[in-house]
């Protein structure tokens, strides 16, 4: 048993894939050129030819803090004094340039400009502008690389978030985490390669839904599916043994299963059987390693305080940030967080205050915590939503209240660690915060850049499926070298 386990523990990526995921016996022999071997099925072979990573990676792990709903860049990071000056005045046609609007405001008679109700100040040596909604983030701006010039094609949530996560607006393709799991494999032996954490915003607890298909493996093997870590009794689905079963009893059962399976293997000679035995061992290890990762009792008080009181409340964004650190500390390759509630069509000032309070302290804490542990240098942290919000008010603009519709033409994201330039701002928008005037970064550019940081050439990392080579960045995307450290 031990030997087998060792065998399985072999960190070699291809070996891992072969043993775990591919389920085709003796697959090494199935080359691209075996005309009978379907390209889809001989998944290992095209990958084997890709020599991943393509070059030395700057980042080994990613924490992607997805802010679902579309945070308002104008109230958080993209400071536009002109909008305050022109508050209530009509958005000039010369600025809008016929840009298509969502059905939610296309019928509006007026498009009154609105600056934020929140005060902006410059911080750090980098003199980055941050609004008062993000007091903790403002203290760490010199660690961050802001991108003010993100843009996307999608103007609605489902296609926009699917675009960020899969490179396509229409569902069905693998998630970005699945791509990394597939291409780069696992760094550890006890935890899934691609994990997912969800939290609900207090600013707008019920706004936009999420979809588990966002972390789906698409046409890749289900081995690359994102594994959701949940708060509650069963942190990973089906992880918990039935009530009353002791660990010893489970161990005993697995040993029996393995012995009987070996007997089958001797008779049938099917290499899949050994692979299955190995998976049961991994499952057994996960039963210990997952709760161990989730259990934050060993975190000292000052760390908890750093993330905020909510860090001890399972299922909150703060708790998930702390968990994200524990996951990358255990060499989980890709941690995908989602924080819901950033869809401020109305009552923006109240809602965004709640949303910001949810994420500000914990995000900053996560980055600094990674830094103090030496993990930030090879962990890439990404913060942002699926699009931005309009510079004009949706609904009636009053002295204290306004809302904002979706705006795909410019929005702000930030990154930290993992080979990006700290204390840097990339891209610029016009004085109206409506159009990009310098250095645009498309969704596919961001994906290409993330891949680059992980040592992957996004144009070369493809997967052949049903007659076509697919990549995360579809047919476009450029690495934005200016943001690289």
């Amino acid at each position, binding site marked *: 048993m031990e030997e087998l386990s060792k065998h399985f523990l072999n960190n070699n990526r291809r070996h891992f894939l072969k043993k775990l995921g591919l389920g085709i016996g003796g697959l090494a022999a199935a080359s691209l050129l075996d005309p009978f071997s379907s390209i889809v099925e001989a998944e290992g072979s095209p990958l084997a030819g890709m020599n991943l990573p393509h070059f030395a990676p700057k980042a080994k792990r990613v924490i992607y803090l997805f802010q679902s709903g579309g945070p308002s860049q104008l109230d958080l990071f993209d400071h536009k004094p002109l909008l305050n000056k022109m508050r209530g005045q009509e958005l000039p046609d010369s600025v809008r340039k016929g840009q298509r609007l969502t059905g939610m405001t296309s019928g509006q008679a007026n498009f009154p400009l609105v600056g934020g109700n929140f005060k902006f100040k410059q911080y750090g040596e980098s003199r980055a502008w941050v609004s008062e909604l993000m007091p903790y983030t403002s203290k760490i701006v010199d660690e961050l690389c802001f991108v003010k010039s993100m843009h996307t094609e999608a103007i609605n949530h489902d296609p926009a978030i699917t675009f960020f996560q899969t490179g396509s607006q229409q569902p069905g393709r693998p998630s970005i985490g699945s791509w990394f799991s597939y291409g780069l494999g696992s760094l550890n032996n006890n935890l899934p390669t691609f994990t997912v954490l969800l939290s609900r915003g207090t600013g707008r607890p019920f706004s936009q839904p999420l979809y588990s298909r966002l972390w789906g493996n698409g046409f890749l093997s289900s081995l690359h*599916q994102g594994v959701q870590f949940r708060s509650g009794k069963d942190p990973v689905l089906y992880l918990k043994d039935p009530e009353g079963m002791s660990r010893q009893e489970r161990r005993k059962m697995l040993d029996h299963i393995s012995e009987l399976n070996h007997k089958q293997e001797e008779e049938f000679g099917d290499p899949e059987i050994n692979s299955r035995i190995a998976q*049961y061992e991994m499952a057994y290890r996960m039963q210990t390693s997952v709760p161990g990762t989730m259990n934050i009792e060993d975190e000292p008080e000052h760390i908890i305080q750093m993330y905020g009181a909510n860090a001890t409340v399972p299922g909150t964004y703060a708790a998930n940030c702390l968990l994200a650190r524990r996951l990358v500390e255990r060499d989980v390759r890709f941690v995908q967080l989602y924080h819901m509630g950033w869809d401020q069509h109305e009552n923006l000032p109240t809602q965004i205050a709640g949303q910001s309070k949810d994420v500000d302290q914990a995000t900053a804490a996560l980055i600094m915590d990674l830094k103090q542990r030496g993990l930030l240098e090879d962990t890439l942290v990404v913060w942002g939503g699926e699009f931005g919000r309009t510079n004009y008010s949706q609904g009636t603009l009053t002295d204290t209240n306004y809302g904002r519709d979706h705006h795909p033409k410019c929005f702000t994201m930030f990154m930290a660690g993992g080979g990006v330039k700290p204390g840097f701002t990339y891209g610029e928008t016009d004085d109206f915060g409506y159009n990009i005037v310098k250095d645009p970064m498309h969704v596919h550019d961001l994906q290409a850049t993330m891949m680059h940081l992980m040592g992957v050439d996004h144009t070369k990392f493809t997967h052949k499926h049903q007659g076509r080579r697919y990549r995360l960045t579809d047919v476009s995307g450029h690495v934005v070298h200016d943001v690289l450290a």
Partner: protein
Amino acid sequence: MSEKNKSKSAKWFLYFIVPFLLVLLFKYISKDKNEGYNSLSSTSENNYDTAEMKVPENVDYIFDVKPILSDRCYLCHGPDEGTREAGLRLDIKENAYAAIGKELDRHAIIPGDTINSQMVYRINNPDVEKRMPPLTSNLSLTDYERKVLTKWIQQGAVWKDHWAFVPPVKSDIPKVSNSELVANKIDNFILKTLEQKGLKPSKKASKEKLIRRVSFDLTGLPPSIDALDSFLNDNSADAYEKVVDKLLASKAYGERMSANWLDIARYADTHGYQDDLERVMWPWRDWVISAFNRNLPYNDFIEWQLAGDLLPDASLEQILATGFNRNHKITQEGGVIDEEYRVEYVLDRANTTSKALLGLTMECAQCHDHKYDPISQREYYSFYGFFNHVDEKGLIGYDEIPEPNITITQKEIEEALSFVNMPDSIKEAKPMVMRDNKAQRKTYILNRGAYDAPTDEVQLAAPEMVAPFEGRYERNRLGLAKWLFSEENSLTARVAVNRMWQQIFGVGIVSSSADFGNQGALPSHPELLDWLAITFKEEGWDMKKMMKRMVLSNTYQQTSKTNEKLLEIDPNNTYLARNSRDKLTAEMIRDNALSVSGLLVEKVGGPSVKPYQPPGIWEETTSGQGLTKYFMDTGGNQYRRSLYTFWKRTVPPPAMMTFDAAGRDLCTVERQKTSTPLQALVMLNDPVLIEAAQVLALNTIKEGEAKTDEQRIEHIFRKLTSRTPDPEEKEKLLSFLKNAEQEYNEKEAQNINELIKANRSIKAEKLYGLSVLTSLVFNLDEAIVKA
């Protein structure tokens, strides 16, 4: 290396270098000049070793050359005019041999002339600036591939058309030496190839394993102990055939066939975007099950689904069948642009139809001419046009039932739709169907596939390279359906029999069952595929008959045992010297557990059901609108076959997704086949499987026939593997059972206490121990694979 060696002793030089040089010289003299270029092999970026692959004696264009051209060259020298380089097009014969270059003084391919053929010169060129494919393409050729292309030209560069676009031909049944191994004609083809490959077929599988395999393949369920015993005791010559007939006649057959069809049809119970509201398409699903069980001929099966509404005097059933093309996702997300999504639905229909029925990935031509197959963007939108006339909206409201639809009440059911299983609690169902609007929408080519970038108007038409359409068929969906089943159509029958083969043998004769185009796999047994395709047509598209033929073949009845040598020669079991040893599908995993424990409720059809799923799955992602909370069904609906499990597209049933079920976002012809640790967790801990184990244990004790522990173990083992455990296995399980009984802890084993309370006559630790033992047997590899 030689630099280093020179400094060593002269002796070394004499012994090693001189002979080496001599060999090189000899090679140079004796072989074609171009061979000299082959020293390039080390530059290949592929790190798998193809050096050992032997270049075939007679290089075949279709099997050896075209896969390389298609995969590495068509990108710039293929059907897409937009990206064509140097005016060279390699997918069409005339162009491939034509003169190129400014002066028209060069040729890529000159049959027999490796010296002047530019292809040989460019692919073997040591100068990276000149070498093809260029570095920038991220593509490269292996040493083997270069040799194949070179040798093909050397041997005269004989051209053949892509096999799939040439109508099938019924060849003679091959004669084989060991005719005693022939149960039907399938075997002749398989045995012939095995002989050619120097492989021997395997022995027959044991009767236990045979009935297990065929039961799962045809019905998705395990054989009952009774069925098993009666087959084991039946020594008549047609014992197996009787089993097969019974399975084909069972209702479960239609359910099993439907599970695959629902993947293809991307069937779901919700609309699929954002808040993902519920829809009612299950009456269509009930029709599918009924059509399979009635053995509706495949041509009708397809014609009704594509164009039932356009048939003369269309019956309500035929109209209901068109729901096939309304199973795509529909958005209700406030603010989307209606036309953008309407176009998306039309694209989905066109793509699904071509993938499912023609085995063509036409969607590539959505944005540009197809890079690999001869489908232009114009042809794509001509095909798209068939589905562009539906009287529908792109954006629907939250309470809206999308048009067009039909209303089904008890009245319709009594009169025309007896197969729809509508409970009395439901007054009416309104499934979506196809209906074209009278004012026919014009169809345009959409530049880069964008809804707001129409260019030229096109007329509806089907791709000519598959079969002639112009002037023969009406320009509507019915015309398309007729065209699909025309004599000349080279794909429809092949694609259909290939998919049946995939269901029965695990992998299709064309292993890429969704892609018969240039990028797809080649048929492993081309003559057999054609023979099956033509036979299928000749027999009136009789699906049951075809399925029966496949399972009655000796090829199918072989054991799945393999050995290292066989694995080495034929790792993917392409040649079928044995049967495959496939895992149960997502549906079968759960259905098997329900079936063996006796929990399964064998009711056919009706509204989808909500069995157990871990709490919180829907709740944690919802926006508070639509299907916000998962209310588990009570009573019998918890134990229906997995085919009926409610499918919420944005949050599909997690255990099924873990076992490679298709997500139902898009048409899926072939599921992934993977094994993962998460699957192990489901097998060990899913409360559904735990409950099934407990109930099976309870029934085993209660039934009373098995009195001793040993007999009980034997009974449970048989139920789950269809065979009797050998003494060693029994002993292992017995010792485990004894231990498990001692492990029983009343306080902790909460989940079994209710069962224990309800069965006071049984000792608690007995029931507990046997339940844990049953769970163990559930997890044996043998219980997770078919046979």
